């Protein structure tokens, strides 16, 4: 598969602390990749290394199949980015801010108006950015990232500070990018619900480690595959299931079956009945992605 972003054993230490450790990120072309993790997980640090702002302590970053270390400028010609809080020059207008980047990117002047239109700032284009609201500054940052129609767009918490309609606009805009321009988008967030609505792939990072990376469907499947069975003796039931080679977890008041399809559920129940357990209740628990996410990161923290 052709990966637009591929990191190998990516590690960054600040003193003794490892902010990112052995991270293997893979983003195929045309995907919207949701990069999830709680505060301080290492998302921004990873993104900084993807952009060559920081040098990895060890490991490598490859964008478009080229190594960041030796092809930084060539790579960055095709990358647009917004890292953490938007950067801007407060004493300049939105237009002048974009013009400062445009001169370096060497794109036609009309792009400025186009991107300002896309983020709905055209009405205030000639106002000094000093007087902008937080959301307007954020929009300007996104506009600057899209100025040169990059093949890869990296957005670090782009909906930070946007109002509800701004968030919806942004989501629509981001969703349209792969379809219309064949762009690949990396978007970080600590809100799963936000990513859930637009991402096609997700990577979950916690304490600097990638703990999950797959398509959003796989993650959703994760969410549906849990069946809880309440029996007279949960622990004995759990042991006997395990002994029979079936996957199960022991909960406080029930046994959770990790079954992948209906037939497996049926088989497990049949087995329990044959073993003489009294089955009180069988229920499907639809764990929300939020729950999975929390559990994933909790396990990491405990371990």
């Amino acid at each position: 598969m052709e990966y637009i972003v591929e990191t190998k054993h990516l590690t960054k230490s600040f003193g003794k602390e490892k902010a990112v450790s052995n991270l293997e990120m893979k983003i195929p072309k045309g995907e919207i990749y949701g990069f999830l993790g709680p505060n301080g997980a290492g998302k921004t640090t990873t993104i900084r290394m993807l952009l060559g702002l920081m040098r990895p302590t060890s490991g490598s970053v490859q964008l478009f199949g080229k190594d960041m270390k030796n092809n930084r400028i060539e790579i960055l010609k095709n990358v647009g980015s917004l890292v953490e809080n938007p950067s801007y020059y407060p004493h300049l207008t939105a237009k002048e801010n974009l013009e400062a980047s445009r001169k370096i990117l060497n794109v036609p002047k009309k792009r400025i108006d186009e991107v300002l239109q896309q983020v709905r700032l055209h009405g205030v284009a000639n106002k000094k950015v000093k007087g902008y609201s937080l959301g307007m500054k954020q929009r300007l940052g996104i506009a600057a990232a899209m100025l040169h129609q990059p093949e890869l767009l990296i957005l670090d918490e782009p909906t930070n500070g946007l109002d509800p309609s701004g968030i919806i606009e942004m989501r629509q805009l981001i969703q349209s990018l792969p379809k219309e321009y064949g762009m690949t988008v990396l978007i970080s967030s600590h809100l799963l619900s936000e990513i859930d609505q637009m991402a096609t792939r997700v990577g979950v990072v916690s304490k600097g480690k990638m703990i999950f990376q797959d398509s959003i469907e796989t993650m959703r499947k994760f969410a549906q595959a849990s069946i809880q069975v309440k029996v007279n003796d949960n622990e004995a039931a759990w042991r006997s299931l395990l002994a029979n080679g079936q996957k199960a977890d022991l909960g406080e008041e029930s046994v959770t079956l990790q079954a992948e399809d209906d037939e497996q559920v049926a088989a497990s129940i049949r087995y329990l009945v044959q073993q003489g357990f009294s089955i009180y209740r069988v229920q499907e628990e639809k764990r929300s992605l939020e729950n999975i996410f929390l559990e994933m990161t909790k396990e990491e923290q405990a371990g």
Partner: protein
Amino acid sequence: MILSLVKADFLKIKRKGMWLLCLIGPFGVVALQMVNYGVRKDYLFDQMDDRWLYYILNINTFTPLAIVLGIVILTSFMASIEDETNAWKQLVALPVSKRAVYLSKFTVVSCIVFLSSVLLFLFMLGYGLTLGLGADIPYLRIIEYSFLPFFAALPVLGLQLWVASVSKNQAIPVTLGAVGVILAYSAPLLPDWVIWKWPALSNDWDHSYINALLGIGFGLVLYVLGMIDFKRRDVK
């Protein structure tokens, strides 16, 4: 690449008052002599037979201080424009090399200080002509004392830009600047190797062009060192 960076940097310094400083510096240096000669012209005329030379030397008591302080202010401004919202990260994430980013800042500050030197030449000559200092106008001397301090101050520029662009806290380069101006003011007491002495154009050999050449050479060294350090550092 470097040209577009320089153009972008010139755009960024709009409305920051840096062009005003470029004018105030040389104007102030000459204006001080306007006051000086305005108040005690006869006394000053009696001090030396070569009235032009004395006038030029009077101006040159302030030029090194103004140039050192001007460099401190301009380099700190350049850095704080990027520091203010941490725009370094957006700038460096553009397809430019960090070396070019640094070179561009150096170029812009040099251009402004050089323009100040041109203005100094014009003001110095202009006011000198109105004073009636004598018919023999020492054009070469005036050029020497307008432009050589700029070249002699390049190491200070290299050092200040370096410190300003890698410091998170601009108090550090500005304090260094305050110390630097004390050194520039104490130039006659200092050995020739102290870079802050050079803009005063005095040395043991009595050839001011030596200061300019040293300035260009050592300025280049400090520029390269600063650039290497700037490139080496992570952008936060």
